[in-house]
């Protein structure tokens, strides 16, 4: 009897695969079992192959595995697509009466469960319920109490009336009874229930919920896989808290709408995927230059260009850290689990306002589409703290005006953080601009002010490094010779993979990095390890490149950013000053 059970329903897009899978996942969650789901899907409305997969256990599950125990196959292709994952004793439930399924041959080592899904569904009131008949059959195979399905059937169909709900319950029972009566020894698997109390949600929903908890009131976005769920979650719900979701005409508008709302003082956000970040990069510089707090969420998918829109990749790290012309100060943080999607979103809003800059919240497709179980207190709303940074009201305006009573929104303070006056604040009227500007927010090309403002913006990052804990999450044996470092959704599979390695006697220290820029200095950790392996879903190893750079010995630097080119004599002098310390060292 395995500790975990791997279940899937697959068919063509349009077959109701997603909603059927979700019903079963919810039933498992309500029955006190942990659930971790994944999807095989393509960017199309109908046809092709799509599957909803559930891994479930009474213990926490943090990953998918290459093993499939129960498969509901609505098409023959579904069986072919999953042949590698099926094994001795895997159960395949299908409807052999369907013309397209008549030639299905289930390998001898597997359990062939031919169930007339469609006919039974018709008996219950309509062929549309054939997937639910299959769920009932699956319940019988896994010894899972059919009553546990009822609540999720009610949740799914209550809008359609009690008759439909009851028909679906009947359909499930017909499936269960058919298997009971026609097959022997089908109860190979045992989906034991517990008294635990779980909620089931995916990473995009966790981000949306985090945004509402954090006081986000304005969301503008343009639909894009796999970030659309953030927008759909917020639509309707954010309204209950005085907020609004705006579907913009494109990502350019989405970020500019959000920027406008943020200038007006709202906590604002937009979420997109890589192609959307490309477009938003235009205004990203303005967000940074105008020192506007904004949370931009990138739910990564496989690129470049349109790439593989429904596939996993972590290929945007370089873009998020370096993207945009010129040098734009930013923070980049990335949740590493579905629950972290909630908490890092809350944190992103606080960081954006405390340091008055754009924050990239980077998630990935795997987090976005995975539905996972958590204890409700994982999202304890009492733990949500909101820090809005240096906001000044009417009374405080005077402390931040110049000798002509003009408010200075970009005043170069010691910590780099300037006062913020929301529009409508008496005496606070000011402009800001994407042009280099002075403390008043007015255009200037004065070399000294240019340098002062660049350094002021850089200083905010330095201040954030001092004030915040840019920590990492650590797992495994801290003294192990092998160090794994990763980011994003890889945390789950790595943690479970470590258990497998431990069985082979390989101990591993694992550092999971939610803070990508700034990030913790891992020089000591890397030097202490015999082997350091950086694990990423991309081809080049973008985090590995950054970490290799981080642990290099520092180079001397000569920089100039006042808008004037290098002059030979000035350059020679700067180089002279840079080389002096080492020359002194050699003469000692």
């Amino acid at each position: 009897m395995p500790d975990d059970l791997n279940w899937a329903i697959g068919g063509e897009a349009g077959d109701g695969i997603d909603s059927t899978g979700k019903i079963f996942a919810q039933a498992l969650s309500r029955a006190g079992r942990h659930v971790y789901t994944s999807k095989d899907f393509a960017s199309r409305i109908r046809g092709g192959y799509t599957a909803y997969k559930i891994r479930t256990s009474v213990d926490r599950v943090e990953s998918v595995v290459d093993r499939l125990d129960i498969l509901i196959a609505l098409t023959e292709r579904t069986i072919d697509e999953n042949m590698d994952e099926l094994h001795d004793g895997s159960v395949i439930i299908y409807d052999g009466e369907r013309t397209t399924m008549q030639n299905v041959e289930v390998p001898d080592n597997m359990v062939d469960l031919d169930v007339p899904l469609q006919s039974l569904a018709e008996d219950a009131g309509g062929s549309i319920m054939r997937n639910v008949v299959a769920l009932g059959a699956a319940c019988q195979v896994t010894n899972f109490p059919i009553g546990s399905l009822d609540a999720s059937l009610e949740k799914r169909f209550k809008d359609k009336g009690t008759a439909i709900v009851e028909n679906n319950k009947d359909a499930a029972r017909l499936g269960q009874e058919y298997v009971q009566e026609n097959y022997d020894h089908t109860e190979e698997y045992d989906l034991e229930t517990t008294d635990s109390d779980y909620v089931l949600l995916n990473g995009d929903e966790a981000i949306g919920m985090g945004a509402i908890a954090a006081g986000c009131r304005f969301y503008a976005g343009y639909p894009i896989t796999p970030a659309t769920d953030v927008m759909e979650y917020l639509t309707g719900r954010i309204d209950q808290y005085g907020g609004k979701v705006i579907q913009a005409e494109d990502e350019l508008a989405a970020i500019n709408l959000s920027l406008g709302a943020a200038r007006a003082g709202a906590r604002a956000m937009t979420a997109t995927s890589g192609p959307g970040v490309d477009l938003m990069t235009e205004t990203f510089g303005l967000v940074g230059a105008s020192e506007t707090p904004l949370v931009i969420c990138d739910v990564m998918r496989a690129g470049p260009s349109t790439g593989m829109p429904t596939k996993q990749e972590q290929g945007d790290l370089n873009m998020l850290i370096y993207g945009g012309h010129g040098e734009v100060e930013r923070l980049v943080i990335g949740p590493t689990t579905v629950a972290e999607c909630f908490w890092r979103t809350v944190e992103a809003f606080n960081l954006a306002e405390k340091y008055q800059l754009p924050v990239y919240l980077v998630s990935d497709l795997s987090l976005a589409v995975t539905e996972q179980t958590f204890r409700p207190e994982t999202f304890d709303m009492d733990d949500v703290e909101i820090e809005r940074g240096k906001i000044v009201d009417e009374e405080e305006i005077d402390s931040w005006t110049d000798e002509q009573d003009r408010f200075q929104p970009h005043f170069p303070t010691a910590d780099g953080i300037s006062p913020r006056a929301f529009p409508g604040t008496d005496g606070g009227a000011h402009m800001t601009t994407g042009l280099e500007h002075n403390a008043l927010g007015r255009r200037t090309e004065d070399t000294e002010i240019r340098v002062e403002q660049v350094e002021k913006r850089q200083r905010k990052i330095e201040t954030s490094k001092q004030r915040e804990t840019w920590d990492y999450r650590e797992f495994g044996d801290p003294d192990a010779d092998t160090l794994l470092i990763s980011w994003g959704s890889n945390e789950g599979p790595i943690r479970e993979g470590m258990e497998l390695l431990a069985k082979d006697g390989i101990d591993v220290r694992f550092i999971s990095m939610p803070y990508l820029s700034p990030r913790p200095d891992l020089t000591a950790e890397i030097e202490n390890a015999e082997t350091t392996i950086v694990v990423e879903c991309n081809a080049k190893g973008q985090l590995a490149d950054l970490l290799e750079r981080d642990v290099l010995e520092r180079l001397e630097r000569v920089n100039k950013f006042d808008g004037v080119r290098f002059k030979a004599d000035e350059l020679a002098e700067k180089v002279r000053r840079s080389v002096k310390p080492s020359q002194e060292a050699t003469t000692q």
Partner: protein
Amino acid sequence: MSSDVRFIDFKSDKQPTWCPGCGDFGTMNGMMKALAETGNDPDNTFIVAGIGCSGKIGTYMHSYALHGVHGRALPVGAGVKMANPELEVMVAGGDGDGYSIGAGHFIHAVRRNVDMSYVVMDNRIYGLTKGQASPTSREDFETSTSPDGTNMAPVNPLALALASGATFIAQSFSSDSQRHTELVREAIEHDGFGLVNVYSPCVTFNDVDTYDYWRDSIVDLSETDHDPSDEDDARERIMSGDREHVGILYQDPDSVPYGRREGMDQNMSEIPDGAPEDAMDLVREFY
């Protein structure tokens, strides 16, 4: 809002760098007067400006303001207004900003009908980059980048607006200060998106669409029997192209602005210092 605000209060202490005689001086003065006449003051006003000569307007006026990136001023303005409906939001830009690089946003801003005004300084030329064709340049207009003319029909911004469901379309001439101010004021007072396309001549680079040309060609609708609520008449005048109309071409008397339609009446900047009181309900939804 105080009732004793003067238009000069909207003027910053920064002197414009526009060429002497530029139409933008008159355009800006009318904006400031209209804002003051409608009871606004700099602390409750937000100006969003695009890029180009016209984009500099945020610097020369005194109010809350953002000088954004090229072509994206309208979504910024809509975002400001939606987040705080108490603010008076005015977006200003040029024909390149609004009808070329920002043409997509223009159409959708018109559709959305957010309660704000949009003043476009239309000089039918790119001035700041020293004289290239603009989207409203005439087909035979010769410039450094169109030596044989653009050979394309000019964009008809009023037609674009009407086709997109505009609720207020006006056109003014920057040198007719009184009439221009009056039309901007109407746009501010309109419940919804108020477009004022302003003939604002470029005296340096455009020797075709000059003050003299416009003075000779303009027909003021107030001197005709035009009824602004008559969409058919508006369409005919906008599409005819043989007249330079000044006045309100079209106004939908039943316009309901986006915020009111969507029940957005809150200042979104005001939030609690923790999660909303009933936020655990959001978690329980996932049972």
